[in-house]
């Protein structure tokens, strides 16, 4: 087995998307505590130890500022960075209407069934914070 065989396999996710994801992981956008936030919600993923807290300031139905703190795997943390970027300055309806599929599209690499929870943690935390909507409509718990 050559090195190349390994490389191509590890990176058979689009290398560009992997780079973007790594960048979000190592240099997360909107990372840190947010003073004066009126929306604060925190949740973890006990099976893998991902932790995420999202804080937002909203005014007149618009997300004026949003930050997160957390620790965990690349998928969960990069997703939080991507999501906060996506909704900053947007109306709250945008958060309500954001679907799983749109979130996964924004993450940009194929997400296997074992990683779905990691990929959707940020969206779940944000929706729960904004709408008290801790589970997905129609989802079997």
């Amino acid at each position, binding site marked *: 087995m050559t090195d190349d065989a390994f490389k191509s*396999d*590890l990176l*058979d996710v689009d290398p560009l998307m992997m780079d973007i994801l790594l960048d979000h992981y190592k240099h997360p956008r909107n990372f840190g505590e947010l003073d004066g936030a009126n929306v604060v919600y925190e949740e973890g993923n006990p099976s893998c130890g991902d932790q995420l807290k999202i804080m937002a300031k909203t005014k007149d139905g618009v997300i004026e500022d949003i930050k997160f703190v957390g620790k965990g795997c*690349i998928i969960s943390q990069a997703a939080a960075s991507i999501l906060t970027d996506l909704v900053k300055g947007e109306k709250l309806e945008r958060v309500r209407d954001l679907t799983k599929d749109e979130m996964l599209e924004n993450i940009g690499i194929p997400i296997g069934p074992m990683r779905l929870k990691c990929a959707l943690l940020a969206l779940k935390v944000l929706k729960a914070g904004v709408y008290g909507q801790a589970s997905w409509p129609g989802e079997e718990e």
Partner: protein
Amino acid sequence: MMEAISERAAKQFDVENVRRDFSVLERKINGHALCYLDNAATSQRPKAVVDAVVESLTWSNANIHRAIHTLGYEATVAYEEAHKKVARFINAKSWREIVFVRNATEALNLVAGSWGAANLRAGDEVVVTIMEHHSNIVPWQLLAARLGFELKFIPVTPDGILDLDAAAKLITRKTKLVGAVHASNVLGAINPVEKLREMARSVGARFLLDGAQSIPHMAVDVRALDCDFFAASGHKMCGPTGIGFLYAKKELLDGMPPFLGGGDMIATVTTNGSTWNELPWKFEAGTSAVAEGIGMGAAVDYLSNIGMNSLFEYERELGGYVLEKLRALPYVTLYGHKRGESLAVFSLNVEGVHPHDGANLLDRLGIAVRSGHHCAQPLMNVLGMDNTLRASFYFYNTREEADRLVHALGELKRVFDR
């Protein structure tokens, strides 16, 4: 005794030969040959075990201890014979000291729920190690909340081995039971259980071993260990899931109240009360996992045929090889393996790589490892470990697979360093 061991160790162990017994090892995962290194979670099952289960299900299926007919007789004999195989495997005095349960977790719950509930009260202490799997912590916590006794933990040294000086201070006249994991599922450390047993004996306490991780890899002799209780799971030692066993000394089992009540565990039932069946059935209420029990018997036969001492020697050599390779990787933090004897179980972190991502990418290379806290959060906390990757080897793993793991860890590092 020593002669017998060296004689068996000398028996030729041929890894390529045993690999043929496990058809799953022919599988490709994501285009790569499966490299199964999650054996501390569950082992794979050899054909002999699968065949025994299939035969029971398709040819000799009946309820045991009830049916007069031929199939009932066959099933009863085979299920009892499985108890006898396990008894011989661990050198128990009698097969009636072997209680079949679902898994080691249930065995430990049985000890707490039956022996513990009958013998512990406020002012007593139960001492376990900080290395325990949650299954030897939570049942005692639940019981302590009801009965008011105290649960204490023997700490580990920074090297990740049991702190025996601290143990000597913790184990006192108040101690009614000392419980220890025989080998750690996180660090691989084989604990100095004889020393703990002596401490337990010196204060008149009972001594319990959680053997879920040890018995798949090393010869276990419960009479030499002189433990009062020994818990194990079938599925970690080549057997099916849903079956495990508790060994306990007969005089203890005789004195213990039943754990679950129901069918098969009684001698007589009247509206005024009931009397109990003979051992071990007193503790096996309801219809048993018959095929699984017979499968565990076949697993014990399979392991005995290989020889536990030659298996142990092979794994020790393989573990030494892995250890040397892992130590040479500057970006890998390895937990444990600093002092004392260990199984080939390696908990580690790759700098800059979350274990979950690591396990995910290793899977893309066909390598199955565990990531997480391994159901041993107290130990992880004191050693300052968060989550780890865990590669756990078994006798069907090879040096080539160890090389693949080491190479893949390097790839992980490279991917995340970009």
